[in-house]
């Protein structure tokens, strides 16, 4: 293992920003198809982090053939044992179990690792794993800091290994079909002028997580792994344990709701528009969870330059209300609107009532399914001169018959085998994520941030 890999964790966390910025080179993105030493047989898989998101990924990948689950690492004994037992029960072999990631990477001969640790550990773990010769699938956000994310891309370029970021919608056939067929090829939206996205989550689903104390790591372990980051020497064991279980609530450990929930959807804005926004303005508040460090609700507007004359995207993340249609991304054009979500139930497609072009041929070709013709709401309170012609409603011709993360992992595995190109490599992920890092500062300072290369460069 290289000296760089052995960098002290705490040093890495503290100095990562400087190191990361210095390592950004103009090397081409390694997308995969020609990946060197692509294994042709079983892939030896390691897991770094065995919490809830690990379970989501494992459930999504357990049906993918050609995987040997070789090792798991986590600092929490209970989760480590649980993950190892699941693997043994399902596949027969007990994987190696490690409290320490570096030890796992040194002792095990792994082809790929999946990283589902807290955001502030993504960059250190990704760099360690890439340097150890593994291809990496890392959950989004790439890092809690832009500099950390840049260090991941630099390590990807430096090592020539693959780095897939967990924006799983990019491999979802429903999203790919919508972008390729409906928006780009058939241009059913006409000129996209606005985008609108949201993730509304109820108070009940936004509470602090509590786990029984007896199974949580001790103080020495939590300090060793940096859960006192930003508050060194000031925290009790109870504080440390709260930060360990609820790391998403702390500014030194995560980006808060706008990155936890919003990152997936703002990524879709940027992917579908094929460009980065030129500015962001935002507002946020701690209006219900008053003692939390992060905003409990954030609203922001991104502006885009487009060949058709510009567009803007409104995004809101609420942790206080679930009403309003759940979570979706809506592309609103002069002729139609595509409201797409990872949940098929939240997906709707509308044809503007005044649109000259008939969508019947699209239905006949199987590109869309018609749900209902537009019907005026009517009623005594309707004032005709205020009303637009009601839109017709359509839906996608089919759905996804797998867990939502499975196609993204399949894409990663195929890329490692040299059979595909990553749908969300580190470089493209960072191009898309970079604007998200500026939402919280824009809201904190009540300012519009006009992006420059300094804000967005990879």
């Amino acid at each position, binding site marked *: 293992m290289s000296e760089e890999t052995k960098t002290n964790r705490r040093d890495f966390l503290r100095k990562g920003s400087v190191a990361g910025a210095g390592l950004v080179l103009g090397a081409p993105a390694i997308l995969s198809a020609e990946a060197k030493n692509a294994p042709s047989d079983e892939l030896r898989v390691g897991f770094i982090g065995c919490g809830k998101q690990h379970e989501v990924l494992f459930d999504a990948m357990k049906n993918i053939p050609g995987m040997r689950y070789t090792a798991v690492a986590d600092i929490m004994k209970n989760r480590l044992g649980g993950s190892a037992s699941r693997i043994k029960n399902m596949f027969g072999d007990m994987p190696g179990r490690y409290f320490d990631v570096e030890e796992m990477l040194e002792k095990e001969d792994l082809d790929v690792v999946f990283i589902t640790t807290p955001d502030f550990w993504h960059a250190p773990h990704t760099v360690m794993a890439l340097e150890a010769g593994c291809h990496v699938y890392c959950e989004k956000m790439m890092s809690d800091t832009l500099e950390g994310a840049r260090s991941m891309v630099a390590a990807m370029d430096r090592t020539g290994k693959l780095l897939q970021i967990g924006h799983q919608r990019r491999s979802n056939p429903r999203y790919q079909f919508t972008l390729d067929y409906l928006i780009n090829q058939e241009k059913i939206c006409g000129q996209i002028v606005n985008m609108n996205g949201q993730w509304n989550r109820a108070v009940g689903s936004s509470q602090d997580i509590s786990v029984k104390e007896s199974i949580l790591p001790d103080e020495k372990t939590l300090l060793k792994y940096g859960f006192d980051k930003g508050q060194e020497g000031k925290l009790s064991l109870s504080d440390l344990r709260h930060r360990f279980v609820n790391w998403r609530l702390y500014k030194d450990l995560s980006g808060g709701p706008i990155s936890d929930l919003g990152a997936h959807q703002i990524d879709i804005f940027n992917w579908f528009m094929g460009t980065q926004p030129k500015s962001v303005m935002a507002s946020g508040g701690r209006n219900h969870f008053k003692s939390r460090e992060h905003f409990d609700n954030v609203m922001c507007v991104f502006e885009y330059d487009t060949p058709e004359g510009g567009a803007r995207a409104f995004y809101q993340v609420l942790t206080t209300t679930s009403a309003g249609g759940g979570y979706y991304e809506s592309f609103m054009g002069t002729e139609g609107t595509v409201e797409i979500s990872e949940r*098929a139930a939240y997906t709707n497609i509308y044809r503007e009532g005044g649109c000259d072009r008939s969508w019947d041929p699209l239905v006949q070709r*199987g590109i869309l399914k018609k749900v209902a013709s537009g019907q005026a709401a009517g009623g005594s309170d309707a004032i005709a001169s205020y009303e637009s012609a009601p839109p017709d409603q359509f839906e*996608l011709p*089919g759905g*996804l*018959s797998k867990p939502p993360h499975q196609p993204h992992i399949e894409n990663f595995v195929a890329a490692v085998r040299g059979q595909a190109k990553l749908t969300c490599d580190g470089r493209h992920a960072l191009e898309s994520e970079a604007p998200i890092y500026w939402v919280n500062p824009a809201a904190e300072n009540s300012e519009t941030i006009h992006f420059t290369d300094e804000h967005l460069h990879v």
Partner: protein
Amino acid sequence: MKSDSDIANFFGFLILRVWLGIRALITGIEKFSGSRSSEVAVNVDGEPNSYGLTADASDKVYGFSHYGGVPEALYKQLADEPLIPEFALKIYDIILGPVLILSGIALLLGLATRYSLLAMGLVYSSLTVGLILLKQDGGIAWLAIHVLLAAVALFNVRHNRFAVISKL
């Protein structure tokens, strides 16, 4: 010849026995159920699409691979309860479905009806423990009705007929 009262008592007990047996048997079988989504690619421009879009349909299927004793969401909540050791929860999760099926079959066939009813009452009581810890009062009341029905059946077990093993 039996009196009208004896026949009514027998029918009353039989109905209770059948209901409790079906309740346990079907609940246990359902713990082996899952869904299988359609994997038929939808046609676009007359050809199966290359994206992997499949027809929106799923079938309910049964199998050991779908088994889940304690529902997943409930399991995670219970695992965080300090008074419930995880090893005990794991064992309970494994045996709950089979116990419900076996007690349901035993009750329907009349195999040791008294002990089957006792086992059933204990299973419903044990389920109550977790719900008390999670403060799910509605579920507690729901289970209490089941326990009461099992107890009423035991009080009236002397009216049991059509049993394969009637002594126990």
